[in-house]
């Protein structure tokens, strides 16, 4: 038991967890027809349940998971996991029906039924179930209350509400103006823009997968990996000083992470050319600025000619540009993560004089 815990602790780093999640995600996207089968899912559920029971035998993990404010995360994980599987299973089922020219699940129930009692009673039962659930939850877990507010003593770690922990985790890799302002703004704008940049008329009003593989992959990557996974990392594995801890590792406030991150300009001028940083800001950060502009401006036309060729023909020019911008913005997080893990890169463009760091 103890040995297993140590192995898991040793294995669990932001890098391994993130990369293995992305790998699993890619496999699921690739072989969805097989992944959603009960034959695959039942063992997954059993392993998850057994793993959770095993994990709960650890004092530290138990304390962390049963913190009142962390209960919703468990509920969220369970429901999001279940409904993801459920929606994809239905999508795969509908795909199969379409390919066999059979009517969709939704088309089989195309009757119009009286709202009273059919719909109203469903809502009524739902409402009662939710009320009962909430009452039990409220009796079982007291709402958290710590010491009175003291603006001069920061608790360690200090965390945002759990639903914003994905953003807080992003702060490790990006400055507040990006992680806290620009990216949340882009998430909102991107979600609102979704109906206008998804040109696919298929899959309207029924569960499907194959016909919408690209957009579903896009959305699920954003939701499951960039949002939910980062919340889990931020809640359960970020301890004092925002240091990373394995799931069964005591939170030691003196954990030292000997990490000194360097900027691209330092890497270039000091380490590579060995002549020291130039005084002129534009000269100093020139390479970084070119890289970022190239990423945002030069890459879209390139994508239009290569992997997004078909999409470029379906979308108008402006829609394609917006889609590409949002796509590249989303991709910038994993890119920055990998740069941090491999070459300890802090900023690509570092102009602290104007609070402009990327």
């Amino acid at each position, binding site marked *: 038991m103890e040995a297993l815990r140590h192995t898991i602790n040793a294995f669990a780093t932001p890098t391994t967890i993130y990369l293995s999640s992305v790998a699993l995600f890619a496999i699921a996207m690739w072989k969805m027809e097989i992944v959603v089968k009960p034959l695959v899912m039942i063992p997954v559920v059993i392993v998850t349940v057994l793993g959770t029971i095993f994990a709960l035998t650890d004092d530290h993990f138990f304390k962390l998971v049963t913190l009142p404010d962390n209960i919703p995360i468990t509920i969220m994980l369970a429901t999001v996991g279940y409904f993801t599987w459920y*929606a994809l299973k239905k999508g795969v089922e509908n795909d199969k029906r379409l390919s066999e020219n059979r009517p969709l699940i939704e088309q089989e129930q195309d009757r119009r039924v*009286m709202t009273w009692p059919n719909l109203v009673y469903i809502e009524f039962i739902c409402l009662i179930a939710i009320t009962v659930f*909430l009452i039990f939850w409220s009796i079982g877990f007291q709402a*958290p209350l710590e010491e009175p*507010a003291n603006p001069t003593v920061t608790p360690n770690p200090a965390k945002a509400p759990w*639903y914003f922990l994905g953003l807080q985790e992003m702060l490790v890799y990006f400055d507040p103006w990006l992680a806290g302002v620009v990216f949340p703004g882009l998430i*909102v704008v991107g979600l609102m823009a979704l109906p206008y940049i998804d040109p696919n008329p298929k899959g309207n009003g029924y569960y499907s997968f194959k016909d919408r593989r690209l957009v579903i992959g896009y959305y699920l990557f954003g939701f499951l990996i960039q949002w939910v996974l980062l919340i889990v990392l931020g809640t359960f594995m970020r301890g004092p000083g925002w240091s990373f801890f394995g799931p069964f590792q005591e939170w030691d406030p003196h954990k030292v992470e000997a990490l000194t991150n360097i900027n691209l300009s330092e890497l270039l001028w000091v380490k590579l050319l060995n002549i020291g940083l130039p005084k002129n800001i534009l000269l100093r950060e020139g390479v970084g600025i070119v890289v970022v502009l190239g990423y945002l401006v030069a890459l879209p036309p390139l994508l239009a000619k290569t992997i997004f060729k078909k999409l470029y023909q379906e979308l108008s020019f402006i829609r394609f540009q917006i889609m590409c911008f949002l796509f590249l913005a989303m991709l910038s997080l994993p890119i920055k993560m990998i740069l941090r893990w491999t070459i300890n890169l802090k900023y690509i463009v570092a102009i602290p004089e104007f609070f402009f760091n990327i």
Partner: protein
Amino acid sequence: MNSKLKQIQKQIVESQIWKSIFRHGMPDDTRTRAMVVLSNVFLHLHPVKSREAGIRVGYTWCMGGITFFLFLVEAVTGILLMFYYRPTAEYAYSDIIALREHVPLGIMRELHRWGAHAMVIAVWLHMFRVFMTGSYKPPREFNWGIGVVLLVLTLLLSFTGYLLPWDQLAIWAIAVGSNMARATPFLGHEGPGASLLKIGDMNLVHAGDDARFGLLAGRMISEATLLRFYVLHCIFIPFVASILMAIHFWRVRKDGGISGPM
């Protein structure tokens, strides 16, 4: 005995009071069932008839309805909590303790807090369901946009409420969250571009007038912030959210009801 009861029932149902409230008999046939939906202002959100596939829990997961119901739970428990809670630095914390220790039914705050968390989850799942069934596609693009705004408002409601207990958890979560506003491009005094906005030697954007200052009503989290978040939490955001919810529900009807295969 039975006939006596029947007679009483008949007297009630045929009284002027009863008939003034209920315009239809027992909903046991198609006509009266339609009347129930049409003559009730709340049920009137629904059409008289619905697509069978669309009302299945397996299709909608009932998540939109649950979200709305949780909003109502939050409104009711929130109003009840307001009877005891005073948004001042002096009283806020002790009022929260009193809600637990002295006030009857000591789980009101728990209902409110857990209901809020549940609502956040329900909104995500509702959005996820709408995405997976492709229900954001024409003609429902606009309503999807309204829904995204409602999602943001739900998170903001939860966020503003987080400060009100006025404990360490509250102010530091808000400190971490609101400090990002300092870094808003051009509008925050530590945001890129802010230092370019100046007349001569005078900075136009500084700690005393930037986005964070507006949010916190001061340079730091103080009693003014508590009051500000209280008003945002209890009145302003629910007010805006209610208007948008009305639009959201109305557009569900107008854009063809609960979605189904086009």
